[in-house]
């Protein structure tokens, strides 16, 4: 039981970070970023290249992941999303664009990094073992702590910095924020870059444990969608709650249901559907976010 809880915390902290980036972008621009999983994969590959191949210290490699993804996100927002949002009659066009970008990033990953599964050497060796009740490798604990730390940093940044305040204003009401003197175009770009950066950060963290490959992008996006739906779209606390809940459900499901085959996700989905039928906006979302 303790093992399941520990696994749940570990999975939940990572999932929460993935969901945070997605929900941030959604709150700011009302864009459902299909390419979020692909950004996560790119982040993983950047860390792999710098840490695994060039021998740069892990923290620096992680920083490179963040920077490159932030730049990528900013460029995508500036040259693709912003003009399309301005030019289209329906807001659904952005969804189409996001799907196109997901395909593009998949193609780029395939061309640049190849389709092989990549892994990096462990950061620290050894396994934490508490009386055979909780067994967890040290590097997983480290990654888990780092993930929780970055979530706390992100929340503090959103709460207390000027940029964070502007972003929150933008998420609440675009027009009102503009009237209060927030540079909407600029902060949309910053917000998108920040969301992409979070995806890159998780990718960089997780490459040390699960490795990275091309096919991980799509399923990651799907999981992120589920978390966002559980917690409520566009709400930061909701994304964290959704991530932790999905992490625990998966950990429990894999432990309890393993003898019945791979039906954990079917059960999670059915319960999600019933939950959404009762509470369509998720745990903490605004109605029809």
């Amino acid at each position, binding site marked *: 039981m303790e093992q399941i809880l520990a696994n749940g915390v570990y999975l939940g902290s990572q999932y929460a970070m993935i969901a945070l980036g997605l929900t941030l972008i959604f709150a700011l621009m009302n864009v459902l970023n299909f390419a979020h999983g692909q950004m996560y994969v790119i982040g993983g590959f950047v860390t792999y290249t710098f840490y695994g191949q060039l021998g740069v210290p892990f923290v620096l490699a992680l920083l490179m992941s963040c920077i490159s993804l932030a730049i990528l996100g900013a460029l995508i927002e500036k040259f693709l999303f912003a003009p*399309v949002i301005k030019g289209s009659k329906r807001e*659904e066009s952005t*969804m*189409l664009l996001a*799907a196109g970008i997901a395909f593009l990033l998949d193609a780029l990953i395939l061309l640049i990094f190849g389709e092989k599964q990549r892994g990096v050497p462990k950061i620290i060796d050894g396994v934490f073992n508490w009386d055979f009740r909780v067994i967890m490798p040290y590097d997983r604990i480290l990654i888990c702590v780092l993930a929780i730390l970055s979530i706390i940093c992100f929340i503090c940044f959103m709460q207390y910095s000027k940029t964070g305040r502007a972003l929150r204003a933008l998420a609440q009401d675009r027009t009102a924020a503009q009237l209060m003197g927030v540079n909407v175009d600029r902060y949309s770009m910053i917000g998108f870059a920040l969301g992409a950066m979070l995806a890159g950060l998780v990718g960089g963290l997780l490459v040390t444990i699960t490795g990275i490959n091309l096919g991980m992008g*799509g399923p990651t996006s799907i999981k992120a969608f589920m978390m966002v739906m559980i917690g409520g779209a566009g709400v930061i606390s909701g994304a964290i709650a959704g991530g932790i809940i999905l992490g625990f459900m998966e950990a429990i499901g894999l432990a309890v249901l393993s003898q019945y085959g791979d*039906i954990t996700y079917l059960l999670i989905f059915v319960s999600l559907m019933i939950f959404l039928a009762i509470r*369509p906006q998720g745990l903490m979302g605004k109605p*029809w*976010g």
Partner: protein
Amino acid sequence: MENITKRQLFNVGLFLFSIFIAVPLIISATGRWDFYFTLTSVALLAIASAGVWLTFYIGRINIGQGAFALIGAYVSAILVVKGGISFWISLPAAGIFAAIVAIFIGMLVLRLRGVYFAMITLVLTQVVTLTALALPITNGAKGISSIPLPSGVSLFGIPILPDFATMANTKLAFYYTACILMVLTYAALYRLVNSRLGHLCRSMQQNEELASSIGVNIAHIRIVIFAISSFFGGIGGAMFGSIAQSVYPSSFQVADSVNFMLNCFLGGLGYVFGPMLGTLVLYFGWDLLFELGKYQMLVYSIILIAVIRFLPNGLLSLQFGKGARK
């Protein structure tokens, strides 16, 4: 229905002529037999895309059509292989089964709107794929292969449909079958859009609360529409499985669901024949780029992004402007 002009009639005639007579003639003249498979796929994908378009007609973005196509493909394959039933009975059965599943799922999720509905349908696709991997009846990752070709049908001793297995040219037969199905689907869609139900759907697309307040039974209509949409998905998937003679959990994936949505958006959501055009352009574009090898995906996605960037309202918005808007 009464306002069909001579010009529209002419266009429909031209369209039917070109797909049933001109295309086979051109293909036999040029010898590009592989185009049959491409065009058959286009016709079948267009059927599934028509379903997605219909759900958009009530203001829902459906990215779950791949799930229903997969369900349809499996139902048909299981009925034919394990039940020994004729394909022509399993085809509507697949559609109806997909529709029943859609009714149950729809009752729960159709209350959701906008991105919420889009997200849950996308998750549905993934879940159906995973379920197909896990269940014993679907044979897991191995899938169901070597499905027999559709057998002949005869009524009171009079053959109506020939046995596909004895035919010299199954590609042509499948092409005709797929085209007939596609024409029927779009005729039904056109009829539906121009019926009372279509008007009610349009009112829901614009404002559900308002429609509800003037007495439209929105809960009923959205389930009916979702069921019809999934019926199309099931039919398309079942036919696809029969042509490929195999079904795997990976036959229809998340990417396919997204593609169905892209077909609709690209063709233009305001037009009944939009999804058909979108499917043709996207699938043919993908096929033509095959010679680029590993750059296929890159070029394809760049073109796709460029189209959305510069024509955010769909391909058909180029041609007609506001004239043919429904």
